[in-house]
């Protein structure tokens, strides 16, 4: 049995915990409380300072979903978290004062990881604030020469989160076959 992981990241309140809960098997373990205790978090790899959930796959394999803590002060841990990850899901909260700045920050933090794998971006809370729109995000990214899947996502909707992961998987391997799409 091998373990694979997908990392969910994004600013505070972007919907990471919610997104992970909406697709994993059991209610995820949220370790926000112990997040302040770094030593312990780094040491105990299964209960790092983050959200955690699993999806059991055919053949006994297991997919692990990790959500990074939203606070920037934890950034040094992200390297440890992403090692062995298969891809990144970045969630951005559209109601935050400067979501483009958030996007740039996380793209920068995870640059190496993204280069080695793939990324999909979900913009949440668009029902509460519709501007900037998805097109604006694309315009911002295209200035940096990036073509990334960005969807309007409600982290509470399983279908939305699921689509984001699908886009990530197909970006990793467009040759994958989806029987019913």
């Amino acid at each position, binding site marked *: 049995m091998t373990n694979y992981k997908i990392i969910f990241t994004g600013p505070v309140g972007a919907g990471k915990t919610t997104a992970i809960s909406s697709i994993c098997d059991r209610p995820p373990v949220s370790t926000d409380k112990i997040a302040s205790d770094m030593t312990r978090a780094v040491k105990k790899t299964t209960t790092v300072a983050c959200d955690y959930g699993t999806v059991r796959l055919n053949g006994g394999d297991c997919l692990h979903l990790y959500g990074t803590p939203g606070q920037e002060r934890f950034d040094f841990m992200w390297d440890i978290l992403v090692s062995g990850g298969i891809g990144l899901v970045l969630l951005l909260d559209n109601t935050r004062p400067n979501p483009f700045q958030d996007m740039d920050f996380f793209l920068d933090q995870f640059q190496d990881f993204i280069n080695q794998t793939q990324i999909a971006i979900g913009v949440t809370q*668009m029902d509460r604030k519709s501007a900037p729109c998805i097109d604006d995000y694309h315009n911002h990214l295209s200035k940096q020469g990036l073509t*990334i899947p*960005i969807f309007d996502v409600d982290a509470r909707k399983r*279908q939305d989160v699921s689509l984001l*992961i699908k886009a990530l998987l*197909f970006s990793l*391997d467009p040759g994958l076959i*989806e029987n019913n*799409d």
Partner: protein
Amino acid sequence: MDNHTRPVKIAALGMEQRTYSTLQLFFHEHCKDSYVLVEENSADISIIDMDGFQAHRMLEEHKKHYPNQPSILISLSHDKAYDAVYIRKPIMLEALSSALLKAKERLQQPVAKVPAPEVPTVGIAPQLQIVASNPETVTPLLLNNVVHNPHKIARQEKPASKHFNQYRYSANFLTEDADLEHINTKLAENFNPDNPIQIAKFQYQPEQTLQGYFQQAYFTALQKQQNVLLKGVWRPITILHESKQLRVEKNFRHLYALSGMLFDKSNVSITVLDNNVDCEPGLHETVLPAEPFLWKLAMRTSRGRVPANTNFTAPIKLIRWPNFTRTIITPHALRIAALWARQPTSLMDTASYLAVPLQHVFMFYTAAVSLNFVAPVITEENHSTTALPPVKRHRYRKIFQNLLERLRNN
């Protein structure tokens, strides 16, 4: 209703311009104006040409909105699938007169609920395309002209944001994809991009379709940073450039039914509005996000075909991912988008590399190119057919496959 004092109002739907004018003449000369042609929503009786592309769908849509309006269906075929008065083509004056009388009788009968007969399935698009027009809305193409709207209506309150209810409608765009089923993907199985006859079969001219006009209006609005008014036989559509939305009549769904028709440019106008013009939706109007609207319109107009002059062997590059959570996902769209983002690939190669029907590639391409989400990569020699370096199989493909399966099952 008093038949002696007021003419019977007739809506002519899905008509060729010539047929429309002939009807007009017939009502005027032979019937002494006891019938007049009007818009669908104010008509007593409708006359519908059933031989047009997507006529059945248009009729369904019409019946849904005007269930009590008697219809006269004109057609070449003997098919009588609907509860209506039928006239066989070619239309004879006598037949038309008697059909009108029959419909009028129905009109005078108390409204009875008619059970909807079974709908015949619509096959792949017949090549026949029809022109619909309404002489009352004839306006020259007004591109580049700033027209000050004389009908500016003062309203008491303005919403804080110009983004009207965007979220509320998005779900509809996601689910209304019944049309996808009608594509017969076998048709393009032996498609040969060097055969002009086959090419002609799988290409269409978007210019004179609602898609083409809408596209032109939409990009004019974005480019000029001004709102734009699109008029034709449909109720006026206003494109709101800032929020990338459109203001349309509430029952906008019938617009999709117009996707199979051609409209002469003399009957369509695109007017750039002054930015001061009040574009708030009226009582019978609503606001929709423009991108999924155009996406769907193009998808429907395409029906597995591509716009004329599409290059089948030039590599296609993804410029922007469609917002797939709020847009119809055409078959295999995610895979095609992912492939074109990673590695520009021609339409032909995409179908063979992904092992998907060519028409599904066409459908995605047409919807995406209407919004400039994709573009061909123009190179010196566009012959990618043989030397395609395939995207490498990921070492975790099996795991990904299992995960996809899981995401679907839950």
